[in-house]
């Protein structure tokens, strides 16, 4: 009853989130102390199983044709069954859409408590304590989970990976699930975006409300191309329909962790900053010297972006 289960999505493969989740799970299991069990749901490539084996004591591959495509109801049934078998003290998930939507419901089915968007998970006085940003990132709370198991979705990409150790065992778990008859996936659309995923990007150029429309994003794109960066946007720009919702970075968008985040015409509301807090260097171009974004910047330029972006692209192209 002092083991830790981490939930990995077979389809996602070995990304930074999987590595961070393995690291977070390993450290929590060692502190309890208990065993680390990595549960892999859905068709898993062998590289993920191998990466999980290198860190976890056991890798439990849940094989069921129902898990081929994601469906919250079926995934929840599978996770509940797996967790009941493994009887963990804590269950950790990533903070992707799937992890976020499953965690609370999983906790409910296991009679436990959930909390999310954790930057830290620890055990003290027999309770799991989850540290997370609240009030749109303006404050930090430590939440003590009253029931067991504690089900926590963590900021997986910001978590340090763990060192490889003696490879763990692999178990194949057959659940024989009954399919949910109520909900079925009709269409799945993955946005064609060049290069790496935003969450994995090492360089990001991001635009906000101050751009005033969709057209300037084309100009920002030339800058991003010159830098080899990915494009992102603030919530205001996404809500206005200037760019797709999948570009949104912030409390309710993506949580990114690049080496450099260049914010252009973004005022820097705390909800936005919550999504970029794990960046190594934040810099900004904004004509308002009092824009809150500068409080989070290593360096900044107080100018109208329209005067700056063109010449900046020229200089970056010249030097590369």
């Amino acid at each position, binding site marked *: 009853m002092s083991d830790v289960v981490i939930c990995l999505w077979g389809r996602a493969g070995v990304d930074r989130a999987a590595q961070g989740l393995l690291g977070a799970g390993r450290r929590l299991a060692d502190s309890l102390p208990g065993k680390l069990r990595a549960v892999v749901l859905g068709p898993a490539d062998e590289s993920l199983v191998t990466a999980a084996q290198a860190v976890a004591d056991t890798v439990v591959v849940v094989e069921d044709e129902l898990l081929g495509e994601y*469906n919250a109801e079926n995934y929840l049934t599978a996770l509940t069954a797996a967790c009941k078998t493994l009887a963990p003290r804590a269950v950790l998930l990533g903070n992707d859409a799937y992890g976020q939507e499953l965690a609370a419901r999983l906790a409910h089915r296991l009679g436990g408590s959930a909390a999310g968007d954790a930057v830290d998970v620890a055990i003290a006085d027999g309770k799991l304590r989850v540290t997370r940003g609240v009030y749109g990132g303006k404050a930090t709370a430590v939440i003590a989970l009253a*029931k067991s198991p504690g089900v926590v979705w963590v900021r997986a990409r910001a978590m340090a990976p763990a060192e490889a150790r003696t490879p763990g065992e692999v178990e194949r778990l057959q659940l024989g699930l009954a399919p949910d008859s109520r909900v079925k996936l*009709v269409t799945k659309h993955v946005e064609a975006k060049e290069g790496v995923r935003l969450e994995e990007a*090492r360089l990001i150029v991001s635009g906000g409300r101050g751009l005033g429309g969709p057209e300037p994003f084309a100009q920002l794109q030339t800058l991003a191309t010159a830098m080899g960066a990915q494009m992102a946007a603030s919530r205001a720009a996404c809500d206005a329909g200037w760019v797709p919702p*999948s570009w949104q970075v912030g409390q*309710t968008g993506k949580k990114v962790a690049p080496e450099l985040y260049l914010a252009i015409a973004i005022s820097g509301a705390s909800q936005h900053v919550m999504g970029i807090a794990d960046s190594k260097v934040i810099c900004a171009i904004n004509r308002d010297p009092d824009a809150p974004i500068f409080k989070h910047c290593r*360096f900044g330029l107080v100018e109208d972006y329209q005067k700056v972006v063109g*010449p900046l692209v020229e200089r970056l192209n010249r030097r*590369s």
Partner: protein
Amino acid sequence: MDIIVCIKQILDPEIPARDFRVDSAKREAERGGANLVTNIFCENALETALQFREAHGGKITVITCGGESTEEVLRKALALRADDAVLIESPAENPDPLFVAQALAAGIRKLGSFDVVLAGRESGDWGAGQTGGLLAEELGVPCISFAETFEPAAEPGKLTVKRQTDSGWEQFESATPLVITITNHEKNVPRIPKTRDVMQSYRKTLTKFALSDLGVDPATSSSYYQIAELSIPRKETQCEFISGDTLEAKIDAFAERVNEIVRSI
């Protein structure tokens, strides 16, 4: 189609960080001069419901759980022409998400049947993001999260729900009843109520349920989790503003700083 929209009143999330204070001993935010407002994602949910009703008909009931001040968010929803409003009177300060879900589920069951329950994906204060999911479990129905729209499916009695994922979107078809949590989207930006409707909203009667009517014990309001600590993080970042005699010089210096990092990768 009977649509129930869960709404929450929160401290205005737009208050600037410099004016934001917490009471670390009581582990809650200080109200100060800030307004209480409807949580934005709840407004997105109500807007989604209003658009559904305009296109396909139906009845919208808004429901909330809290003290006397929460009447205000119900009035605002009525001003946007929700059909009915229900207040679950609860004395609990900062109740945990399971308590809220249990109170809402009990209130919803008392109202009778429903087809869809909408909730915001999370709140702008504690941002737990759990109420919708826990509510679905309490009611024993499916849940589709982070949706931007829903509409009748070809098959009668079913709904098509489009929801956002990390890399795009997914569309599900679901039987009713179900819970849907709503996220922000260009199509569900909340409308502004008409002055006449604001006046009208004060003439409408709110349905009020006491926790005791619903069989919910206020003493359980933090038996799921407790806030053990609350503080404002101190940030040490000092922004270096790029200076220069001319715009050209400033752009040169800025480009150099960016290039340093780009080259290091």
